[in-house]
């Protein structure tokens, strides 16, 4: 059969479409964004009427997916790893309510922090919630496991977490699609009318059910087609390889002739019998995990009864993604000598695009801040975070979505006045609004700059939930009308912008300044689309 060339994320999207999904819910975040984008652009998904609009944040996305599952249909929710922190409230409780229609929670981790603030491992969340976890090791498994995840979810009436990492997300390979496209579920309410009502008395019962189901989840892992024990003669070492770790292992034995017994794990909870067998038969065990040493830590324990090597003893690096070389070294291979990077090669960090509106904001901001003294600008997550780098060096914090406003508030409460928040339009509607309400309620002297480029730019210009709504949201939250300013961030207006900054920094209450100019990249893309559709119309 003809294979399709798909990124790991696209394979999941296609797998979910072919697996009878009725809706995907998500907020963009690298490396998860293209799952939803693929579905938005899929003709097949459109014909099947699959929901795929962006949500305001990961929590609203997860809750909507749970609602769809409640109604009996298959739903997928996608996010990057730190997005799961935002959605964690719903996530943990969804393990207690369980699912009705199949629910697949896809979380893309970013070890080595290519585009993130940390490298948290979502498998830990899976264990925390006591949910089954899938960790595909290649694009084909990613495709197959989307459908399998829905089936597992419906069989055990629980949401299933699928954890992927950057390398799989953004690597392409040929994927064979299943011949059969599953029909979407009919609307069907849960048989147990109070299944989703987590009053303590009901929640206790549901929790006991979750606990008693653990054995079943484990049995499913033992039987899973995605987990395997492969025996071999040399028992001086056994290898446990999770997700992509398996690929880096096999890369070192291209003819498939690994001399050591191997347990491949792509489904959790950990298949206990396989682990017992390998630790029992081998003198020591090497654990290869893309992310935290989750299994390694469990096996090693405090008593260190098992001879376990991996990330904790330095055999592999404690942080960052695995590489084939790192794994090769752990297996005792001599690494090929290679050339070094010549000294003349300079670092080329990412930077704001030429003509970006954030540049005009930072240029003005820096000059006015200099009048008050540095150290008072709290920024957020988005392209404007690049304002931390030269030549701007304009911001003093970037922590999590929305934290700019609330950190500015805390600092102002502590006496750092004025304190300034810089946040993007979409980040504001993601998690900034509630913090602004806190500040309004206390009339905290902060200035909030919502640098509005009318798109979610860092992830590729997705539609911003904030579009056309910012002023009315701020007014609705109680910001005084005369302290809301919309301005055009262009070099010509430099002095005017400074004047407004200065004036509002002096105001002893909440001010919101909205510099608004569409993202340069988004504009280029929009023009292209416009031109193409005009050409099409002309032809017709």
């Amino acid at each position: 059969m003809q294979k399709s060339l798909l990124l790991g994320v696209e394979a999941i999207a296609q797998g979910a479409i072919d697996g009878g999904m009725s809706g995907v819910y998500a907020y963009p975040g690298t490396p998860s964004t293209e799952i939803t984008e693929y579905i938005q652009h899929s003709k097949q998904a459109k014909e099947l009427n699959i929901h795929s609009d962006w949500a305001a944040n990961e929590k609203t996305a997860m809750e909507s997916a749970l609602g769809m599952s409640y109604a009996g249909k298959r739903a997928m929710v996608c996010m990057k790893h730190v997005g799961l922190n935002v959605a964690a409230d719903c996530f943990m409780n969804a393990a207690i309510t369980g699912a009705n229609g199949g629910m697949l929670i896809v979380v893309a981790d970013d070890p080595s922090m290519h585009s993130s603030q940390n490298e948290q491992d979502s498998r830990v969340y899976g264990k925390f919630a006591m949910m089954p976890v899938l960790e595909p090791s290649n694009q084909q498994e990613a495709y197959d496991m989307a459908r399998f995840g829905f089936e597992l979810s419906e069989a055990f009436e629980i949401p299933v977490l699928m954890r992927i990492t950057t390398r799989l997300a953004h690597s392409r390979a040929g994927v064979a699609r299943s011949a059969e496209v599953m029909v979407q579920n009919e609307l069907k309410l849960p048989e147990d009318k109070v299944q989703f009502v987590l009053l303590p008395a009901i929640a206790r019962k549901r929790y006991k059910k979750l606990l008693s189901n653990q054995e079943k989840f484990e049995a499913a892992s033992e039987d899973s087609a995605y987990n395997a024990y492969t025996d071999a003669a040399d028992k001086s070492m056994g290898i446990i390889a999770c997700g992509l770790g398996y690929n880096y292992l096999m890369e070192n034995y291209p003819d498939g002739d690994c001399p050591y017994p191997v347990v491949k794990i792509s489904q959790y909870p950990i298949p206990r019998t396989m682990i017992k067998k390998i630790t029992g038969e081998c003198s020591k065990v090497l654990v290869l995990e893309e992310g935290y040493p989750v299994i390694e830590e469990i096996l090693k324990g405090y008593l260190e009864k098992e001879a376990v090597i991996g990330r904790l003893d330095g055999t592999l690096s404690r942080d960052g993604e695995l590489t084939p070389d790192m794994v090769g070294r752990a297996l005792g291979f001599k690494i090929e000598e290679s050339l070094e990077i010549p000294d003349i090669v300079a670092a080329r960090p990412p930077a704001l695009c030429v003509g970006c509106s954030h540049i005009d904001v930072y240029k003005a901001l820096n000059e006015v801040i200099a009048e008050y003294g540095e150290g008072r600008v709290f920024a957020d997550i988005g392209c404007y975070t690049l304002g931390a780098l030269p030549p701007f060096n304009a911001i003093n914090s970037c922590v999590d979505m929305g934290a700019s406003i609330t950190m500015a508030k805390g600092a102002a409460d502590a006496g750092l006045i004025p304190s300034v928040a810089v946040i993007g339009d979409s980040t504001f509607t993601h998690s900034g609004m509630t913090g602004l309400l806190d500040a309004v309620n206390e009339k905290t002297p902060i200035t909030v700059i919502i640098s509005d480029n009318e798109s979610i730019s860092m992830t590729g210009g997705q539609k911003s939930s904030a579009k056309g709504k910012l002023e009315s949201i701020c007014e609705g939250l109680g910001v005084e009308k005369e302290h809301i300013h919309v301005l055009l961030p262009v070099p010509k207006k430099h002095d005017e912008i400074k004047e407004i900054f200065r004036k509002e920094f002096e105001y002893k209450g909440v001010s919101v300044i909205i510099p608004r100019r569409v993202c340069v990249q988004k504009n280029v893309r929009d023009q292209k689309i416009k031109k193409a559709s005009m050409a099409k119309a002309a032809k017709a």
Partner: protein
Amino acid sequence: MVIAGVGGQGILSIAAALGSAALDNDLYMKQAETHGMSQRGGDVQSFMRISDKPIYSDLIPKGGADIILSVEPMEALRYLPYLKKGGYVVTNSTPFINITDYPEQEKLEATIKALPNYVLIDADRIAKEEVGSARAFNFVMLGAASPFIDVPFEYLEEGIRKIFARKGEEVVDMNIKALHAGRKFSQENR
């Protein structure tokens, strides 16, 4: 093969043509690429692996690349640790300068010319003057690397045809012309 460049230069179209060529001819392929933050003018790379046997790792091991194809001269050097002994560096000579400490052009060229196997080609000029489209420089580069890629040359032509089919005959022909121009330069200057 490591394909290197700067975010926004469009190296992924090179990978796409190769990928499609590989897949249509029943070869195994894996191609890892950079998305997200570094696409904003940072260094970007794509790891392209093609084989007649199954491929496991999405990443190329150090010292494991047969070719470094770079659309920017300094970026070619960034990936030298991945180059196999005897492997080729095929790089565009036109720099993309978006940083203040970009090395001097002469030193950069000297470093490239000190490598045992290299092709240094002004793909921008060839695209503009010989092909007639500045945007085709990516496929001039693929053409320049083609003598070292162990995949029949027709496959590459097919790959280009396929990925640009939607854009019409003219675009296809332009990029195939670019492919040939790059290949010719390489054969004459390796």
